[in-house]
C-alpha cells in the first residue's frame, strides 16, 4: 500500500512537471518565473492539510489514547514542517523578481512564519520529553492550539493590506484564469497531496516500529 502510494506520487509528480513546463504557457506579465506557481501553492496547500490532520489526530488521541493517532499526528507534523519550510523558501524565491525583495513582514508571510515556528516547537517538545505518553499528551494539546493559526494565515490577505496576492483557487467564485493554467495547477496539487500521503504513511509506520522496538 505504502509502496503503491510512492509509485503513484512519483508518476503524478512527473506528470505535474511536464504540465508545468510543457503545457502551461508563458505568463504575459511575469514571464516564465510565474511557473513557480505550479510548485509554491501546492506546497502551501499540503502544509494546510498536514496541520489539519495533526489537529484531528490530536483530538482523536486525547479522546481515545490510541498510539496510532499519536503516530499520525507526529508524522503529519514532521512532513508539514518540511512542506511549510519549502513553501516559505519557494515564495521567497518567487518574491525577489516580482516584489523586489526576498522577505517582507506582511501579514501573510509573518503568520506563516509563526505557523512554521510553532510546529518546529511541536517537534522539539516531542524530542525533549522522554516519557512517550506524556510527550503525546502535551503535543496533542499543542497540535490543537497551533492549528488555530491556520485561519489567520488563510484570511490574513483579506483582513490586512498585504503584498501577498489573495488566493487563486480557494476563494469564493473559484479560479477565474484559463484552463491551460488551471489544469497544471490542479495536477500538481493532486501530486503533492499523494506525495504527502505517502510520506506520512511511511513515517507513521516507522514511528510504530520504533515504539515497538523500545517496548
Amino acid at each position, binding site marked *: 500500500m505504502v509502496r503503491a502510494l510512492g509509485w503513484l506520487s512519483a508518476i503524478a509528480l512527473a506528470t505535474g512537471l511536464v504540465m508545468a513546463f510543457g503545457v502551461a504557457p508563458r505568463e504575459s506579465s511575469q*514571464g516564465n*518565473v510565474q511557473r513557480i506557481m505550479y510548485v509554491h501553492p501546492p506546497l502551501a496547500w499540503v502544509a494546510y492539510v498536514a496541520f489539519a490532520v495533526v489537529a484531528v489526530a490530536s483530538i482523536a488521541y486525547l479522546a481515545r489514547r490510541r498510539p496510532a493517532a499519536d503516530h499520525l499526528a507526529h508524522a503529519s507534523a514532521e512532513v508539514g514542517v518540511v512542506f511549510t519550510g519549502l513553501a516559505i523558501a*519557494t515564495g521567497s524565491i*518567487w518574491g525577489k*523578481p516580482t516584489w523586489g525583495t526576498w522577505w517582507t513582514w506582511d501579514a501573510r508571510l509573518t503568520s506563516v512564519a509563526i505557523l512554521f515556528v510553532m510546529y518546529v516547537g511541536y517537534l522539539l517538545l516531542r524530542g525533549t520529553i522522554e516519557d512517550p505518553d506524556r510527550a503525546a499528551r502535551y503535543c496533542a494539546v499543542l497540535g490543537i492550539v497551533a492549528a488555530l493559526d491556520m485561519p489567520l494565515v488563510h484570511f490574513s490577505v483579506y483582513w490586512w493590506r498585504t503584498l501577498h496576492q489573495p488566493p487563486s483557487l480557494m476563494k469564493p467564485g473559484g479560479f477565474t484564469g484559463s484552463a491551460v493554467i488551471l489544469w497544471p495547477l490542479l495536477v500538481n496539487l493532486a501530486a503533492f497531496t499523494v*506525495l504527502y500521503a505517502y510520506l506520512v504513511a511511511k513515517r507513521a509506520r*516507522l514511528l510504530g516500529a520504533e515504539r515497538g522496538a523500545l517496548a
Partner: protein
Amino acid sequence: MPDNWGFVVAAYGLTAAVLALYWRHLVRKEKELRPPKTADSKGTDSRSDSSSATSARNVAGTATANTERTRQTSSSDREIAERSRQPSSSDREIAERSRQPSSSGHPRPDPTSRGPLQ
C-alpha cells in the same frame, strides 16, 4: 519582464532536493529498524554467502593455529615442569657442601635432622 529562469530552477531544484533528502532519511531509518538477516535465511545474496563462508574459514583457520600453539605451549610447559622436578647441578653442589664439615671448625648439624622452619 525578463524570464528569470534562475529563480525557476532554484525553486524547483530546492523543492526536489529537500524532498529527496527527507525521503532518503526515512528509507535509511527504515533500514536501521529492519532486523538483521540470518545466514541460512532465503533472502541472503551470493555475495553475503561468500563473505560469510570466507569469515567462517578465517575463524576455523585461527582456531587451528590456536590449538597448535596451545599444544606447543603445553609441551614446553611439561619440559619446564620436568626440569623443575630434577635437582639442578648447583642444587646438588649446595647440598653436597652442606654435608661437609665447615672449614671454621664449628659443628654443623646434620641437614636431614633439621626441622621444617630451620
